[in-house]
């Protein structure tokens, strides 16, 4: 039994030796200079979660922009996990990428990643979600607050057009930890209150369609005279619209239903009159913008920002309704 203990130590020891023996070989390659000539540039892109169509589009936009420059592209999928995010993004840095583009699952977990990149002198461009107060080189961000505001304006206008009898609206939020997405509902709530409406139900559907469906059903039982609903993302917006339909009401003419993201399911629903509107972000365009910023950073030049002080580059959001939905189809 004594040998078990020894062998445990031996395993650890072998690993340790292996590591310390190798550690000399790498010191040479630290501190890569920036301002590389194009041709042998590798761009590392750490993406939030490839299971979502939004990020699939973002990845496509980024990859195509990288390939158009004749650069190499390395993808890492964070799979909606902060541990995977930190481990994988740091691994990209270890693999010697020349620039890191990242759409962080948890912006607050960017610290150790950005710190490592700074140490290696690798520029970091953040794509959406948030920067977590780190010294990144640039962040491309959708204007979430503006989206929430546009949703409120459109909702108020449509309620008036429908001849809505009450001023009661419902606001369905994403999971409580999604602080940046929460700005959509915060801006919506503020704007809709300014227009004289009252948010009678505000609950988190945890970004899940199943939960949003139940919340909407319950909200309708509580206030049958609700005239509008805004959901933080499209799966929840479309689920709310389905709940409204199942309660025997119309999710456009009876209760104005607005989602966020312009996912295919929302576009389909708007086309069929099953959803009033959604707010389109342009993930592919955001991806292309990050690559442009990466090129500027690699050339050692100055980056062009929309907001110099926060190193922010804005990507506009667009209201999608039945009038312009055709542009977003396909």
């Amino acid at each position, binding site marked *: 039994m004594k*040998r*078990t203990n020894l062998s445990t130590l031996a395993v650890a020891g072998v690993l340790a030796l292996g*590591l*310390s023996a190798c550690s000399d070989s790498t010191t040479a390659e630290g501190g890569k200079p920036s301002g590389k000539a194009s041709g042998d540039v590798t761009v590392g892109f750490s993406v939030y979660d490839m*299971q979502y169509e939004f990020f699939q589009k973002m990845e496509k936009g980024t990859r195509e922009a990288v390939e158009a420059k004749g650069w190499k592209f390395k993808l890492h999928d964070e799979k909606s996990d*902060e541990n995977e995010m930190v*481990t994988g993004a740091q691994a990209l840095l270890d693999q010697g990428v020349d620039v890191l583009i990242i759409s962080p699952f948890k912006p607050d*977990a960017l610290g150790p990643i950005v710190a490592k990149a700074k140490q290696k002198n690798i520029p970091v461009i953040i794509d959406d979600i948030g920067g977590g*107060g780190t010294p990144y080189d640039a962040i491309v961000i959708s204007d979430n607050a503006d989206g929430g505001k546009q949703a409120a304006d459109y909702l108020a206008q449509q309620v008036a057009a429908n001849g809505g009898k009450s001023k009661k609206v419902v606001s369905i939020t994403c999971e409580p*930890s999604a602080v940046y997405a929460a700005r959509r509902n915060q801006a919506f709530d503020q704007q809709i209150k300014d227009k004289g409406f009252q948010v009678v139900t505000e609950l988190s559907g945890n970004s899940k369609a199943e939960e949003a469906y139940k919340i909407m059903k319950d909200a309708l039982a509580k206030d049958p005279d609700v005239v509008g609903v805004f959901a933080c993302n499209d799966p929840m917006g479309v689920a709310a619209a389905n709940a409204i339909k199942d309660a025997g009401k119309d999710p456009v003419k009876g209760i104005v239903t607005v989602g966020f993201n312009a996912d295919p399911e929302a576009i389909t629903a708007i086309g069929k009159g099953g959803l009033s509107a959604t707010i389109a972000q342009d993930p592919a365009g955001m991806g292309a913008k990050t690559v442009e910023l990466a090129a500027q950073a690699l050339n050692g030049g100055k980056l062009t920002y929309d907001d110099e002080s926060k190193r922010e580059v804005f990507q506009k959001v667009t209201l999608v309704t039945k009038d312009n939905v055709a542009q977003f189809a396909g």
Partner: protein
Amino acid sequence: MTSDTALPPAPGAQAPAPATETQRRWARQHSIGAVWETWGITAVLVVLLAASPLLSSDFLTVANLQSVLRESAYLGIVAAAMTLAVMNDTFDLSVGGQLALVSVTTLMGYAAGGTGLAVLVAVVTGVACGAVNGALVTAMRVPPFVATLGMLFVFRGVAYVLTQHGPKALPYSEIGSPFVKIGGLNLAGIPLPFLIMVAFYGAIWVLLRRTATGRRILAFGSSPEAARFCGISVHRIRMLIFVVIGFSVGVAALTYVSRVWTADGAAQDGFELRVIAAVVLGGTSLKGGKGTLIGTFSAVLLVGVLNDLLVSSGVDASYQRIVLGCVLITALAIDGLRTRFAAPGSFARVLPRRRREAPAP
């Protein structure tokens, strides 16, 4: 001999003793099967490491190996304590909730009083969580499975309440803090979290093999009736196990949150299942009474290596799941086929069959 599997044999068992049961046990411990039980998963790990250059050219670099060891540590530390629990024929489903809660309170502790307070808060919160579980199981007599399933919701819920105005995080200005070093430092090229994990395995090994308490843990898992008959207090042992698990989560959370810098109620969803999977993959039987720390240790690294290989060779996340799930089933099927009829009381049926299958691993 090298096995830390199964109940410590009676002194006489080292040499063939007259009692047939002892003889059988001796034979079992020295068969290919027994060696496989302890070292099998380690062998798989070695094979995988040897094959890794074929699968990914980037794998065998120092930075990457450090990365795998660093990120495996928090899982490994809790898995060591969970091995104790599973050997004792119980388990703790609440560790994911504990990890989220401890990570949140640790960051709050850091904000309030720096590294020292953060470490203290981590350990205290972890032990407190464990004590609550232990009290439910011993004093209130709730079955462990359900008590810890319920507490999983409760711990996560409390973490959610504490972070309802946004996740707790370490600001970037703290980049030089000693707290960050817990997760980031390398000593002689070895990541500190991994060293903590090795030390933790050492401590659990000593507890299990060198103390009376450790023998009682195994004895109870192997035969509750016999253990009770010998006057072993079930309650005290169960309480201790849950507190040790809570403590391990406290330590693990330190290596986790100092690396990831942020936590909220949703942190590491499904952690409990990953921990139990590592323990079982390592060869510890869910029927209690036997288990191997070496196996758990290797299984944690195996999962880490496999995950790293799949990620770096660009395998789609959906296929990554399928591969990891299949590995788990295969490992269990090997174990399951071997011990299929080993349930207590079915020896008469087992033996002829065993003999026929004897050469099988």
